[in-house]
């Protein structure tokens, strides 16, 4: 029997085990998770922080009805590539035929006085947010936290700041970069986003770094200080590569893998936040799940190479609608660029297109267009010619409801296919009320939604008659426009009609 050991019970390792459960029913799959917690969905942690979900509601579905064994609280401490075993903290050895490293990443904690304790762990009143346990710790500290500083104005930092602000806390964000989310956003987008957040009560301090923390105050590098009963650190993550490095595997920023998620040892694979593919560590859940698909195929004899996933980054923060699609920030030579900015209303859009296809976009304050733009990007499909309509986000159908503007061939009652022409004819034939028109033309007898329109046409005809009588012009001539010239039509194959 094929023994597959997965080191790591995060979303990537969990997804892989779930795929193997159905695709490799004869394999013995063992998941070794460092945390005592069941596998959970890290993406939902901001919802836990904002109190919208309980920690338990982030748990992922169990591997029911298959040969998957999950050991929790079993951190892997070493790999013996010769004997093909891994050792866990409890001293047990786990033999493998295939080993998967899904060890994830951990928060980067700046080594500053007052932020870290003697053991390198966060000091009292400091939380580095990565795990559900971190969320629980944060929850415990919140009741005593009058003032909160979030260190780091990246995606997670801003999401946490907004979630805490939502719960009524005063929040400052200290960010080293020139503007927030500078990895994803250009400067005008970053400035507009900061202004949006400021309006929501979150104070943003860019171009500043923390220096130290003493007595509930955080000192910054310019000598200023912020009250900080609680400091939440969200200053980036580091892939967990120590095991791989100790085992002699090739490691760059992450554990280096090929298109099939294989490391430099053909029996060892890596995926998710610990893996480096083509020089990149994506650090997002969608690529991790894609990688799980690739690896599940590879481990069951298939071939589905991983190609860097198209990324769409959404800021999950209430009342802030930001999406960064593909390459939002970087200069794209030769691209057609469409921009639209209304900073006073917190709106900024930038679409970069090449060959009519979206290669990158920033959409801030365009909630209705994100979906359409990201789907066009994901599909690599050509963009509608009307770029501004795309940004407006909703099909704006021109409607002319006024009875006089309606062409004669316009169908007023869809249920009975009654045109304006037929209603005009019916009216002229003596059906002068909506009820009479309903009897003679059947208009409005189906769903009834055209009753207003039929009534409108009736009134309009009567008014036109009065006006015509007054001016002694033959009635009706003015309001029965000639039918539009019919389009020359290709003859229809006989089979089509019957």
């Amino acid at each position, binding site marked *: 029997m094929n023994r597959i050991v997965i080191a790591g019970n995060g979303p990537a390792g969990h997804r892989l085990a779930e795929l193997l459960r159905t695709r490799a029913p004869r394999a013995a799959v063992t998941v070794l998770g460092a945390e005592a917690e069941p596998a959970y969905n890290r993406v939902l942690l901001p919802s836990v922080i904002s109190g919208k979900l309980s920690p338990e509601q982030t748990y992922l579905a169990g591997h029911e009805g298959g040969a998957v064994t999950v050991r929790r609280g079993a951190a892997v401490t070493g790999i013996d590539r010769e004997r093909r075993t891994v050792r866990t903290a409890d001293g047990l050895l786990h033999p493998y035929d295939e080993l998967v490293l899904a060890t994830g990443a951990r928060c980067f904690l700046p080594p500053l006085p007052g932020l870290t304790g003697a053991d390198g762990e966060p000091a009292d009143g400091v939380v580095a947010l990565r795990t559900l346990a971190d969320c629980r710790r944060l929850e415990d500290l919140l009741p005593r936290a009058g003032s909160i500083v979030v260190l780091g104005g990246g995606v997670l930092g801003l999401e946490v700041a907004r979630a805490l602000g939502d719960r009524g806390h005063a929040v400052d964000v200290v960010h080293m970069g020139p503007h927030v989310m500078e990895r994803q956003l250009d400067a005008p987008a970053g400035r507009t986003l900061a202004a949006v957040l400021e309006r929501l009560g979150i104070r943003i301090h860019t171009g500043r770094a923390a220096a130290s923390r003493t007595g509930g105050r955080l000192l910054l590098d310019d000598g200023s200080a912020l009250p900080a009963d609680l400091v939440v650190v969200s200053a980036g993550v580091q892939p967990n590569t120590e095991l791989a490095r100790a085992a002699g595997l090739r490691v760059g920023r992450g554990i280096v893998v090929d298109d099939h998620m294989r490391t430099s040892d053909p029996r060892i694979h890596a995926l998710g936040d610990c893996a480096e593919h083509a020089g990149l560590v994506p650090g997002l859940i969608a690529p991790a799940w894609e990688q799980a698909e690739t690896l599940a195929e590879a481990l069951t004899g298939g071939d589905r190479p991983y190609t860097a996933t198209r990324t769409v980054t959404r800021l999950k923060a209430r009342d802030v*609608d930001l999406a960064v699609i593909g390459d939002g920030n970087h200069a794209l030579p030769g691209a057609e660029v469409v921009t639209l900015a209304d900073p006073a209303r917190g709106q900024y859009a930038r679409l970069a297109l090449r060959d009519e296809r979206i290669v990158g976009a920033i959409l801030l304050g365009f909630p*209705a267009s994100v979906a359409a733009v990201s*789907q066009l990007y994901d599909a690599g*499909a050509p963009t509608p010619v009307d770029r501004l309509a795309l940004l407006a986000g909703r099909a704006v159908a021109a409607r002319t409801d006024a009875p006089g503007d309606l062409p004669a061939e316009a169908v007023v009652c869809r249920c009975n296919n009654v045109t304006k022409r037929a209603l005009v004819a019916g009216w002229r034939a003596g059906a002068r009320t909506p009820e009479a028109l309903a009897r003679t033309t059947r208009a409005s007898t189906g*769903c009834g939604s055209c009753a207003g329109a039929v009534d409108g046409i009736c009134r309009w005809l009567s008014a036109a008659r009065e006006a015509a009588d007054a001016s002694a012009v033959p009635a009706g001539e003015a309001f029965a426009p000639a039918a539009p010239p019919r389009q020359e039509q290709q003859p229809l194959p006989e089979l089509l009609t019957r």
Partner: protein
Amino acid sequence: MTRTHCPYCALQCGTRLEVSPQGLVVSPDEDFPVNAGRLCMKGWTAPRVLSAADRLTSPLMRPRPGAEQRPVAWETALDHVGAELRRIVSAHGPDAVAVFGGGGLTNEKAYALGKFARVALGTSQIDYNGRFCMSSAAAAGQAAFGLDRGLPFPVTDLASAEVVLLAGANVAETMPPLMRHLDGADLIVVDPRRSATAERAALHLSPAPGTDLALALGLLHVAVADGRLDRDYVARRTSGFDQAWRHAAEWWPERTERVTGVPVADQFAAVRMLAAAKRRYVLTGRGAEQHSKGTDTVSSYVNLALALGMPGREGSGYGCLTGQGNGQGGREHGQKADQLPGYRRITDPAARAHVAGVWGVDPAGLPGAGPSGYELLDSLGRPGGPRALLVFGSNPVVSAPAAAEITARLASLDLLVVADFVPSETARMADAVLPVTQWAEEDGTMTNLEGRVLRRRRAIDPPPGVRSDLWVLRELAVRLGRPGHRFPDDPAEVFAELRRASHGGPADYSGIEPEALDDPAQAAHWPFPAGGTSTPRLFLERFAHADGRARFRAVGHRDAAELPDGGYPLHATTGRVLAHYQSGAQTRRVPESVEADGEAFVEVHPDTARRNGLTAGSLARVVSRRGATVARVRTVASLRTDTVFLPFHFPGAGRANLITNPALDPVSRMPEFKVCAVRLEPLGSGVTTGSGER
């Protein structure tokens, strides 16, 4: 004046028929609450089909294989069919003869057809076109509530709704008079197209074709994360929430948005509208159901309704908008492969014993469950598959998916017999055509989408030469050596037997006195057991599972069976238009309907048309891996650029089902009519892929 009901959809609008010198005149029945004086074009013009120029008035046979169909005497046709059936059964066994029924047949016909198959033929090979209709909703409803009745409440309850979510239901076109009951409600319409119904919506959610399930999971996620879960209801009246949530937990709003194309803000708006209302409904239609994951999609919408505490409360709930005229009754009385009358399972020994008792046969002699509709059609003429097929009230040449292949299957049969009232495309292929009565020429009962049993009444005599389906079944049974009295041709007698057969079953009709159906003030909603009463509203006290609880079903999303790629870059979705009904066999014979929409067309976004060298009014070939269909281009600016839409009512080279994908739902065996991958070509561009392309 005769009171009856419209021959078309599951609303079964009440109509009054007057015989006049110009022929039969229809007017809507003010007293029937479902339509209350309303009628759509199809209902107004229904008499046209009675006098269709090519109405079948004599049996037809071919003098020799391949020759033209010619009129023959009834005796000749019945004797020939009877002899052929006997020959095929004795040479190849009873399963060599298959039966395909329809959701438009009266309860009596559906019942008699199932009995004929199981008793006279002894075949397990019977199914019907309801598989293509509401089978996914039926499976999901059964799983959630322990009982499937399209609407577990009267249609008129909808009139007081504040909010109604319509998932994949374009009722403004497919059942216009229903819109009257939705006038007062804010509608949330889920449809990839900006349909006539979506135009009327307070909120239109437009998911990419094939992503409805992800959207429903996303809405459940929002319901929980936004604090809208009805915890008390979930604890008291349901089971299985935690497992269902584990799947929905993976569909946070931003991910749902990316996969479905429905904005995050709209997801929240939809849930908040539903949650804030006191009287609210979730209704599904074919758009959610006709997928290879249709059952899971409906389950997901049911889960949403359960999470918000909707089903089983007066003024609120989940329902399926059944499509065909007797789509509800048609699925209850035994023309489905796995069922016996009364909505009983054919594999249940107690059900077999009860029904065999009513039929006066040995339960051991009843066949078991047969294959589902598409699988049955696809097995015709293949080694081990049926060699003869009897079709009643269906036109699979136009309505089945991968229609070219199914047409080839029909052509490979030793014997194809079609009972119909017009020469449908399927009838034209038949070795023997049997002309039968239609709506205004016959008595019987129908069960509409709210589980209400209605009387269809005879207003005029059928043309000479036309017989009832019940008479045809009896005559064939006699020729198969069965006693004629076992197969009565009087609908009243059949209904009486049906009541006994359904007694004690989930769809219990045993208490329904036919005379009571004549009183418009009385409404007979099943279950209506002998000695009991009508059940207009189900589940108010308890759901039909043994523990009385509704069950969340833990379902996850999966992709459509076929996704767009380089060769087939667009989604195609199919559906109906207002003027036509199903395969169009009836409405294509109505001048008013032909005037409204007389030919196959394809709706395309103007940009997509331009990029494919097409203009409005030109002809396009719409090509999938199954084949190609020809249709006239209509440019529709509100359509998604990645999606084209085709109605499936048209025959020949314009059949939308030439391109559809027969990937089946694993539970309901519903084919994936609603999404496949296609490309567009101008007609005559010289690219010939042909319908044989695989």
